[in-house]
């Protein structure tokens, strides 16, 4: 009861497509670097959870989804927001408490959302969004739209009750939902292996819900794309949910300025060598794209993000009056007469 489909060795992704994915990953990487620097410079307050290193999961998945599919992400969700179409400037503006932020500076780094792009939110309470994704899939099924919903979550989220309830409900109701675990080996500072008695915290549990699962290389955008495409196809054809566990690694610490000293140096070295950008670049080179061209794309991303930083910096502060708007659908926050 594991892999319901096989991952092809050299899948057929066109160079154009791979290029687009590489460029989007580059933009995400640069946005995360910018976020980090802005945080260090005191221009981003609160906290950030950077997804540098996880880009292939977001971009590979997104490239396999329809525009009207639903994505639910965690506080570590910048990559998903951008992969679904949020711009770096509006994301960074949100982090910098600017009026032009995607959430008007009311959400912050942990809550990037672009509902109009099917990016239905980033949730800061571990595991809470898994039932929501099941619910969105239920809605799609009832409305007969053929949409799927995708929940992205961390390895640590697999031990919380909501994970269990969501997978079971989704399995029983045969919902068109994908549960995609970004297993980066660590919760905050504690290795997942210390708090889970099975080696693959998401994949090894799928069978307990009667669900198929697949383990994939989360740093290979092509592998991600194919796995997600296959799972989405299954879901759309009424065969229910799939659990995908993508092995990946974060390049920064857990949040803020965490230097991640709890990670063995050798482990870090090995994973950095499998940087998703390097993996994708290698695929492009194998397809005949010269290194200089690839580097040019990266530089373009760098440029794009540096303009976004400038734009976000220049943006206005939010109107203080907005603190009291948008609790209710009528725009107000009145709770009494």
């Amino acid at each position, binding site marked *: 009861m594991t892999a319901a489909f096989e991952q092809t060795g050299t899948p057929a992704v066109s160079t154009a497509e791979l290029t687009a994915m590489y460029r989007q990953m580059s933009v995400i990487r640069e946005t995360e670097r910018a976020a980090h620097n802005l945080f260090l410079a005191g221009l981003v307050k609160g906290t950030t959870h950077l997804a540098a290193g996880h880009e292939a999961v977001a971009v590979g998945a997104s490239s396999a989804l329809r525009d009207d599919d*639903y994505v*639910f992400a965690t506080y570590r969700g910048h990559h998903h927001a951008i992969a679904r179409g949020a711009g770096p400037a509006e994301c960074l503006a949100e982090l910098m408490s600017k009026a032009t*932020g*995607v*959430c*008007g*500076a*009311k*959400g912050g780094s942990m*809550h990037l*959302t*672009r*509902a*109009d792009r099917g990016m*239905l*939110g980033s*949730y800061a*309470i571990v595991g*809470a*969004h*898994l*039932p*929501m*994704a*099941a*619910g*969105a*899939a*239920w*809605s*799609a099924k*009832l*409305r007969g739209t053929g949409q799927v*919903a995708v929940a992205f979550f961390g390895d640590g989220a697999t031990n919380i*009750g*909501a994970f269990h*309830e*969501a997978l*079971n*409900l989704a399995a*029983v*109701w045969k919902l068109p939902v994908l549960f995609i675990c970004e297993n980066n080996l660590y919760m905050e500072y504690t290795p997942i292996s210390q708090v889970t008695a099975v080696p693959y915290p998401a994949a090894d549990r799928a069978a307990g819900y009667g669900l198929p699962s697949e383990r994939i290389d989360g740093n290979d955008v092509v592998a991600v794309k194919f796995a997600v495409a296959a799972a989405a196809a299954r879901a759309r054809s009424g065969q229910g949910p799939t659990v995908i566990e993508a092995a990946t690694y974060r390049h920064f610490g857990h949040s803020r300025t965490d230097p991640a000293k709890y990670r063995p140096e050798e482990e870090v070295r090995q994973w950095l060598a499998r940087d998703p950008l390097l993996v994708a670049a290698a695929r492009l080179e194998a397809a005949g794209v010269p290194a200089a061209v690839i580097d040019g794309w990266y530089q373009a991303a760098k440029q794009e993000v540096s303009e976004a930083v400038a734009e976000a910096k220049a943006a206005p502060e939010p109107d203080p009056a*907005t603190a009291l*708007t*948008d*609790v*209710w*659908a*009528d*725009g107000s*926050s*009145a*709770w*009494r*007469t």
Partner: protein
Amino acid sequence: MTDLLTYRDAVAEGIAREMRRDPSVVCLGEDIGAAEGVFKTTAGLFREFGRERVWDTPISEQAIVGAAMGAALTGLRPVAEIMFSDFLACCWDYIANEIPKIRYMTGGQVTVPLVVRTANGGGLGFGAQHSQAVENWALTVPGLKIVAPSTPADVVGLMASAIRSPDPVIFFEHKGLFASKGEPAPPGHVVDLGRAAIVRPGTDLTIVALAYTVPIALAAADQLAAAGVSAEVIDLRCLVPLDMATVLASVGRTSRVLTVEENPYQGGWGGTVVSIIAEEGFELLDAPAKRVAAECVPLPFANSLEEQVIPTAAKVVRAARTLLEY
């Protein structure tokens, strides 16, 4: 003469009316389908609307309410049942942290048009974990509308408003009222959220009540009337929006006020109501504001013990007397 309707049947009737009106209304919960709910408050729904709109769930309160939220974000109007209101604690993250905050924290990008219905309150001998009145839990959370009707017609009228509301509503159905009867709701009956009802006008004292304590307050008012005291009884019907205008106007007329709450005194909704009166109605008062609330203990099982803990008409009469003698 029209037949009277039970509060229990009014719940199912209220939901059914909206399901007929709007195909995006769907129900989910434990044993709500063919079994028609443990309190029979979904009677007839499965038969009329079928498996596609009335969904039995596993015992997974988080999944029930979390899925309702996801569905509400994407075009449905789910009505989720949490069997006993005590079990809201099992999905409190959704009620407190997710559902009421997502609209605000996305800067208004989404709405969450859902209803969480639940059987609330004591009086049936179900013990400490199945008898609580927890509307005050919900009151601690900005972003939720809170409804707690006391009559069958209000159940129907407020259910219509709750289901049509673009904002999330926690709908407290009182276990102790399920068997009570009242006038049926006329066709198309809608009661706006946030409008208290003066269910008995009076001049000497204002009694503010909610759900199960409304009949208690009315019984107390009867006893007081026999002693020549005219008590005005207000049924709040909702805690959010909270109709303080009606309460303050009443206190302006009577100069004396008493809240009757089933929840414990500590952290009870009466604290919010009384503190508003203490600030905005200070000059209206000729006597201290008083609260008759449950004792600050878990609910005991035995009837004889439970009535020591929760409000009774006798306790309300006693408190009213103190105020009137002031």
